[in-house]
């Protein structure tokens, strides 16, 4: 019985081996077909539009004439453009910095409490990240309301003058960053908590025996062990924050007088609402340098891993 079974199988495989597999039975072909939808999506809906926007940026407003770098020349002459560049950089750098710091602090505190309660706290603290940003920004918008601001009501209790959260340019910039930090810090917290848990306890014991205080333990043990995860999260977050749209759009829509526009919201205003698609495309292309920087870092990282393996 057993012999017969193995016998027939042997014949079968031998017959299969003798026949050269057809194109559609080859492993590489099947694999390619399996990956084909992915390739199509990436090629048609990501790569093609990305390249097309570079082409669009070289056309005039009615998209009939090639103007080369005319759109960029026009942008460089506008004061609003430089304001948007400045605001995008301030927004991204400040927000990422505070997200990373708050994330690190909160992760540290969650890590410090007994294991039993950590799940509960972690669950509570991640809520801002789970709510769709367009919805939670509405809540902030309401908290910042000029006449019914709940913050100003609290401030009035302790005798602080009402703050024009979204009315004044500087406060509006502050508010936009605050909401972004509120939304993004929990993500950092989760990442850093996972990283903290992977630091071996022995290292801290060794450091304590050598007489390190908590600051030295943080600086010489925790941070070096978390270096990779900190770099990756900061890089990702910088890219995402630089390209942020939802929060600024809902909270201020760029106002007051274009003071809080970032690249994405300004591109939307010019390209979709203003009908000047090439100009909008030119503005959105300014998000590319930071993207390229991220790509270089990640490719280097992948190559390094490839060499180690």
């Amino acid at each position, binding site marked *: 019985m057993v012999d017969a079974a193995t016998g027939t199988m042997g014949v079968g495989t031998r017959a299969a081996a003798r026949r050269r597999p057809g194109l559609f039975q080859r492993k590489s072909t099947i694999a390619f077909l399996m990956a084909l939808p992915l390739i199509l999506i990436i090629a048609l*809906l990501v790569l093609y539009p990305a390249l097309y926007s570079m082409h669009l940026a070289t056309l005039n407003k009615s998209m009939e004439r090639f103007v080369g770098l005319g759109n960029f020349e026009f942008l460089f002459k506008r004061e609003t453009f430089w304001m948007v560049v400045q605001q995008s950089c301030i927004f991204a750098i400040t927000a990422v910095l505070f997200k990373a710091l708050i994330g690190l602090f909160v992760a540290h505190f969650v890590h410090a409490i007994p294991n039993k309660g950590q799940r509960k706290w972690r669950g509570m603290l991640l809520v801002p990240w789970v709510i769709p940003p*367009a919805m939670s920004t509405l809540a902030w918008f309401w908290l910042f309301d000029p006449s019914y601001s709940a913050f100003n009501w609290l401030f009035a209790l302790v005798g602080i003058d009402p703050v024009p959260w979204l009315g004044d340019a500087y406060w509006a910039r502050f508010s936009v960053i605050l909401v972004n930090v*509120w939304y993004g810090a929990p*993500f950092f917290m989760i*990442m850093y908590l996972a990283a903290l848990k992977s630091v071996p306890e022995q290292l801290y014991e060794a450091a304590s025996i050598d007489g390190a205080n908590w600051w030295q333990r943080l600086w010489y043990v925790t941070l070096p062990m978390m270096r990779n995860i900190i770099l*990756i999260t900061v890089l990702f977050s910088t890219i995402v924050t630089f390209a942020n749209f*939802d929060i600024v759009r809902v909270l201020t829509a760029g106002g007051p007088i274009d003071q809080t526009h970032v690249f994405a919201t300004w591109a939307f205003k010019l390209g979709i609402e203003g009908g000047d698609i090439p100009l909008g495309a030119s503005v959105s292309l300014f998000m590319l340098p930071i993207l390229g920087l991220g790509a270089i870092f990640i490719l280097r990282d992948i190559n390094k891993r490839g060499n180690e393996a």
Partner: protein
Amino acid sequence: MATAVLHDRGGPSRPVRYGSISRSRKRALVWSYVFLVIFAIFFLMPPVYMFITSLKTSQEISAATNPWWVFDPTLANYIELLSSNQYLTFFKNSAIISIAVVIITMCVSIPAAFALSRMKFWGSTTLATGVFLTYLIPETLLFIPLFKTFAFVYEYTGIQLINNWWVLLFLYPTLTVPFCTWIMIGYFASIPKELDEAAIIDGASYVQTLTRIFIPVALPGIIAATIFAFTVSWAQFLYPLAFTTSTDQLVLPVGIITTLIKGDVFNWGQIMTGALLGAAPPLIIYAFLMDYYIAGLTAGATKG
């Protein structure tokens, strides 16, 4: 003997030192809790305030009373929204799109991740890296050229893509597929090679290896990817804002912002109710599947 006694004499200082360590630990713990409570208040304040406002009448909102307290709770806002056809249309659009996008994403990214992690073909390693890089390209870079492309499609074929909710079914996968493929590659790569080699030796085809072995073994990863795809599609704001305008084609985030905010008249009770109900599906999923949710979040970076 004498020295031993002497040591004993010197002893009392030592228990005090131990005591101080445990006391400093306790103090650190108390401080941790204090800061955690402060941050929890900061993180939970907007959703809580949404809930407080959603229970108020317009009169109470415009009265100069304590905004942090409900004096006269009412469910009128909920009843009004849940019986409004318009709001239910937004909800339905959002639900259909998110579920369909999850299905499309899984159908695309699971086979692709299997092919990229197990079956090498020409260019497969480059493609795996490329998948990750496309994840980094933000939608804010793509919406303008896509808008123009869709206008071209209309000019040449007469198919109107703009202002139809189903066009989002083409757009959302660009946000979900790269990341889901990437984390699925990670999960599939962690499955021991012996397992699929054994299946191949037993005569299973590649498709059978995928459906009988890889999908069941990597199920936690698939759940994490599903949750990610759902929450991303549910929360997406830019694409629907740019590509849909008629009120019957809108999804929740855009619908709430464009229809409930009418000029200068803000009906904040309803806006907050709408936003809270709109945030409910992701929150409920998160409440029940928190561990998968967090696994999906951390997988992207740690396996990268």
